[in-house]
């Protein structure tokens, strides 16, 4: 029995609540069960449904935007399992475990590590200029790709079942993650230059001073790489600037005196 389009839409909508009960023990486990339940209800009845449900409330964790692909594929496998005689339970469990961790790693690198700083970098150009549309620009730039992943990959997962892994491989997502991160670094370089240049122009200071910004920035980057917390870096930087400001004000008042 094929799962209707309406039920699949129901599952897709429930996947938007995947992490509502995120916890340290089973992570997205309960959420994955909650999302698949409308489909499982169509495939199994009574005791069998409860047995299958118990299997899905266990540990599960993947990237939230790639979870629909896993859900689509698992749904297809459950559909086949319900239709044919024979037990595929182990195969479905293995598939779920096999893809969850690599998908999580790909998603973390692509979305959190690459796309998010990229979209933020672009939006901040507008925000620094005081353009109130900047938040909307961020939301638009950021959400195009995740929405595409959530919908197209869910459909592909359901259509191809286990073969959906090949679809991910074809798209060479780890390479895209690296390219996105590189683009983000370039954009953030441009953004830093823009902010520094604007500040110097505003204070009528010589522009070449801006090039010196690279020294503390690279130093802070290297220190952050060693594991020093952002909070500490912020405090050190702010306190240093604060005292330099006070000292400079004293020097200026002494000179004018």
């Amino acid at each position, binding site marked *: 029995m094929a799962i209707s389009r309406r039920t699949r839409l129901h599952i897709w909508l429930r996947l938007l609540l995947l992490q509502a009960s995120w*916890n340290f023990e089973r992570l997205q486990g*309960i959420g994955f069960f909650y999302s698949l339940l409308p489909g499982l209800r169509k495939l199994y009845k009574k005791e069998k449904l409860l047995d299958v449900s118990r299997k899905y409330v266990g540990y599960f964790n993947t990237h939230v935007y790639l979870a629909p692909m896993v859900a689509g594929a698992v749904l297809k496998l459950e559909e086949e399992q319900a239709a044919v005689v024979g037990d595929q339970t182990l195969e479905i469990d293995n598939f779920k475990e096999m893809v969850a961790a690599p998908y999580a790693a790909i998603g973390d690198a692509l979305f959190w*590590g690459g796309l998010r700083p990229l979209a*933020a970098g672009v939006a901040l150009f507008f925000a620094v200029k005081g353009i109130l549309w900047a938040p909307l620009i961020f939301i638009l730039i950021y959400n195009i790709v995740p929405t595409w992943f959530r919908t197209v990959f869910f459909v592909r997962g359901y259509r191809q079942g286990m073969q959906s892994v090949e679809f991910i491989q074809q798209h060479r997502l780890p390479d895209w993650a690296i390219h996105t991160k590189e683009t983000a670094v370039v954009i953030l370089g*441009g953004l830093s230059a823009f902010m520094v240049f604007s500040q110097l122009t505003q204070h009528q200071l010589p522009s070449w001073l801006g090039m010196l910004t690279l020294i503390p920035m690279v130093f802070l980057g290297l220190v952050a790489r060693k594991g020093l917390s952002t909070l500490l870096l912020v405090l050190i*930087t702010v306190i240093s600037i604060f005292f330099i400001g006070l000292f400079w004000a004293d020097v200026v008042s002494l000179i004018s005196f």
Partner: protein
Amino acid sequence: MIVSLLLGALVSLVCGLDRVAILQIMISRPIVAAPLVALILGEPQIGLQIGVMVELLWLARLPVGAAVPPDDTQVAIASSVLAIILGRTLNASGIELLLLCLLVAIPLGKVGQYFDRYARQYNVRLIKQVDLALDRGSLLQAELQHLRGLTSFSLAAIGTYAIVLVGGLLIIPFLWPLLQQPLSYSSAWVQLALPLVGIAVILGTINVSRAITLFCASFCMSFLLMWLV
């Protein structure tokens, strides 16, 4: 004032849920959340300025696996609300008050990390309830347990917002007369430094070979272009 606080709490709740529990369409990012709450309170530029300063600070801390990053959403929302409310009550304006609110909110926001952790720890209890519901044969009860998780994430969001807000309302009125003048000497540079520190941290942790080379090349090219044009 009460209405402003409540409106802030509403935004804090919606954005706090977007952070982990539902949707993840990134309305929880400071660049969206801060201008949103400030727009509702009638001063969107304040939110935009705070959003610029907070957005990049913890962007390098990825919510990978069981890692819980600092709650920059509530820091951005609460400091925007503080800046707007205190600006009206202290009859103050300008970047100095905004910075003071943010600098008080950032360490207080660290509490948010504990609330967030506690919410996830609390949700472990739901597992037992789900298992029990399935043993009893009630799928509906099992489903409801999942939705109950939203309560703990909502409370964590509101809790962090309240801590930052109450802390700010108690501390800032005392600090403001003392720091208003000294801050004016350095405010513009601190405003510039905060996003740059965030970018530096991203640069140090982004895990791209030649990240520093790429960054420096892009910085120099852009700077030279702006200088020459």
